[in-house]
């Protein structure tokens, strides 16, 4: 087990280097960002040259990347164009997005799996058809429509929530945005769980468990769920990273100053250091979430061993 984890951790290094290099090159290919800093006029060449020097943009790309990575290992992620340290931006953005992601994941786990189990055990009944239809609608309606409609209904029409989230972004404010962010994944989790449960409900070991006279809830929890959750856990695990990086739309609608907002700003201003810094952290999140998912398999199904 320990050796497996170490091997997995070592595998992260090439992935990490490759991902950061790709992002670095992509943002760089967009061209020189300095020209966008002077409004509708030509930057004064002397100032522009000075700024380029300061942000290290006057060096060849390869050298820029090496310098940047060297600095990253000392915890220096560079500076954004407005003079803020990228680490400072991360410090304000990541906690917010992490909270939002936690809310979204909780929704997925609690509502998604519950609905999945309920429908999986009642295949073909009205409740099953109903939930299937609803999830189909949720999957096909884009996030920004759900977001804007909920914002208008709950925020403006009925006044239950504030349409925008304050800068503290406490958990209670993030319930509606979290639900919006989770909505599509929630529908997937429901359907995945349903299919998986429906498949396994007919399995031999379930029949055996029922025949042994085990109480129903025990059969479902201990035998059925444990085996059925493997694809669901995989999905939720990879979804953590996707939610954190893909919350741009939701964050914009509810004015949440999180990772999505900083990334959007960074891309618009072609600020390599911001974009690469944030993506680097997101890549790490993805990798670690994936590792955790793989380790969870062993917990769920003892037959899976990582020797």
């Amino acid at each position, binding site marked *: 087990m320990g050796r497996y984890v170490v091997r997995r951790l070592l595998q992260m290094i090439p992935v990490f280097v490759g991902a950061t290099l790709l992002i670095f090159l992509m943002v760089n290919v*967009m*061209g*020189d*960002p*300095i*020209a*966008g*800093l*002077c*409004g*509708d*006029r*030509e*930057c*004064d*060449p*002397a*100032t522009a*040259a*000075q*700024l380029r020097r*300061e942000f290290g943009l006057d060096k060849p790309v390869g050298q820029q990347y090496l310098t940047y990575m060297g600095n990253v290992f000392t915890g220096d992620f560079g500076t954004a*164009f*407005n*003079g*803020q340290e990228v680490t*400072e*931006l991360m410090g*304000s953005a990541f906690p917010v997005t992490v909270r939002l992601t936690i809310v979204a994941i909780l929704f997925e786990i609690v509502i998604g799996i519950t609905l999945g189990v309920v429908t999986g055990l009642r295949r073909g009944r009205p409740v099953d058809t109903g939930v299937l239809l609803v999830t189909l609608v949720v999957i096909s309606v*884009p*996030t*920004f*429509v759900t977001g*804007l*409609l909920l*914002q*208008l209904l709950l*925020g*403006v*029409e009925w*006044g239950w929530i*504030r*349409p*925008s989230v304050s*800068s503290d972004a406490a958990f209670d404010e993030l319930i509606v945005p979290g639900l919006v962010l989770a909505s599509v994944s929630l529908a997937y989790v429901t359907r995945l769980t349903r299919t998986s449960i429906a498949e396994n409900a007919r399995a031999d070991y379930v029949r055996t468990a029922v025949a042994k006279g085990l109480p129903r809830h025990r059969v479902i929890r201990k035998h059925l769920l444990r085996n059925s959750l493997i694809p669901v856990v995989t999905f939720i695990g990879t979804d953590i990273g996707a939610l954190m990086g893909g919350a*741009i*739309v939701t*964050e*914009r*609608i*509810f*004015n949440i*100053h999180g990772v999505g*907002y900083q990334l*959007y*700003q960074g*891309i*618009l*201003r*072609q600020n390599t250091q911001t974009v690469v810094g944030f993506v680097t952290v997101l890549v790490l999140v993805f990798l670690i979430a994936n590792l955790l998912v793989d380790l969870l398999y062993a917990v769920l199904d003892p037959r899976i061993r990582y020797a």
Partner: protein
Amino acid sequence: MRGATHARWAACAAAAALAATACGGGDGGGSGDTGAVLSSSWGDPQNPLEPANTNEVQGGKVLDMIFRGLKRYDPETGEAKDMLAEEIETTDSQNFTITIKDGWTFSNGEKVTAKSFVDAWNYGASLKNNQRNAYFFEYIEGYDKTHPADGGKQTADTLSGLKVVDENTFTVKLTQKFSTFPDTLGYNAYVPLPQSFFTDHDAWLSKPVGNGPYAVDSYTKGSQLSVRKWDDYPGEDKAQNGGVDLKVYTDNNTAYTDLMAGNLDLVDDVPAAQLKNVETDLGDRYINTPAGIIQTLAFPYYDENWGKDGMEKVREGLSRAIDREQITETIFQKTRTPATDWTSPVLGEEGGYKDGLCGDACAYDPDAAKKLIEEGGGLPGGQVKITYNADTGSHKQWVDAVCNSINNALDNDKACVGNPVGTFADFRNQITQRKLSGPFRAGWQMDYPLVQNFLQPLYYTNASSNDGKWSNAEFDKLVDEANAESDTATAVEKFQQAEEVVRDNMAAIPLWYQNGSAGYSDRLSDVSLNPFSVPVYDQIKVS
């Protein structure tokens, strides 16, 4: 954002529902609570919040609240009025003696002296400080030493043309005659700075200290800046409210929704998608007033196709093929006004705005357009591509509309197409590297309300915003003469003659004047926008 266009229909669908809840307008009038704080929408400033480093509205908004300079532009008329300046004397329009009023201090108690100005200006002009607005000091003697144009090493840290005479007096020596120089001194780059700006720069940046009616109370970068009324403010324009909380919104649609829900008092940028229903939503709590912004189409004169003689006819033809009335009405819901000259109505008649100076060349006439373009030898390559940046504003909509208008006028659906560029920086790069082969978007927001500012930076040979590299000796001569002219009325006349040269060559096609728009909650009264489209915060009353 990919979803912007779809978001619009969602917003429209919801608008019908919204209209039902929109409360009637009407302000409380009378006196407000001078201690009450209002909240207002804001955007994250692009550059560090230093006076000589701020070149966009969001940062300028803050500077405007916490600083006062030698002059201040009247929020209503735009006229440059003395603020800290006791008097600005000159005999030759080149050497100025500036005396500042007694009794002004910064909000930390430090006295505002001649040195506060000179230090601040030297800081702004010095290359090593990376101030993006350094060029505002370029007319002052010694600028070439503190800010060598070739990027070489600076040989001086201070401007030789600035001298402190005594506590309240300093002199400015310019490199050329510039009669309207005193009127430019209302710009944010010229405000005084306290010593703490130089001694503990980082601390100052995290909580700026100025000498305006408001003092910064707290600043959380990227999310909120709170200013509070400064009780000991010595000026006439004391704040009529307790303060302002500027909240950063990433999307002005959200800010508008917050205003509708009563969580925000003031939105100073009504999103294009909401313009259709803003009147029903807000009634008379919506203002739409002219601002010193003009949109034009510029041309790449370095491209041989556009630089050759006879092309002025083609450009004029294109101008006449654009139905400005219809575009400003349908796309912008009258928040833009068709342009009839190259300046802005906010200057006023006396300031140099001349309604109809463009004459027939800006009047929609498809037949004339066709004829002119044929006479000029047709469109280069049979097609024009209008380049614009698609990341901000609603540029795509109007460029497409302009192209449709041109295509309809010429009965050719391939005559004009839009050419979007992903980011503003990329757009600027294509311009500065002279890569463009057709017309491109050129917006101009004035720095100060002078006719000079609408002409010289844009059309003078090699000027900083002359992106098309248009060059005309006649125009340059007239601008030089106008700058040397000490009598304002004559100077304005000279500038208008120069503007006629721009017209006769159709150096750039004027499209429309942009208005500032704002909406506010029923807690507020006396809300207005200044000619820079920034709310006049200190006059707002909160009930």
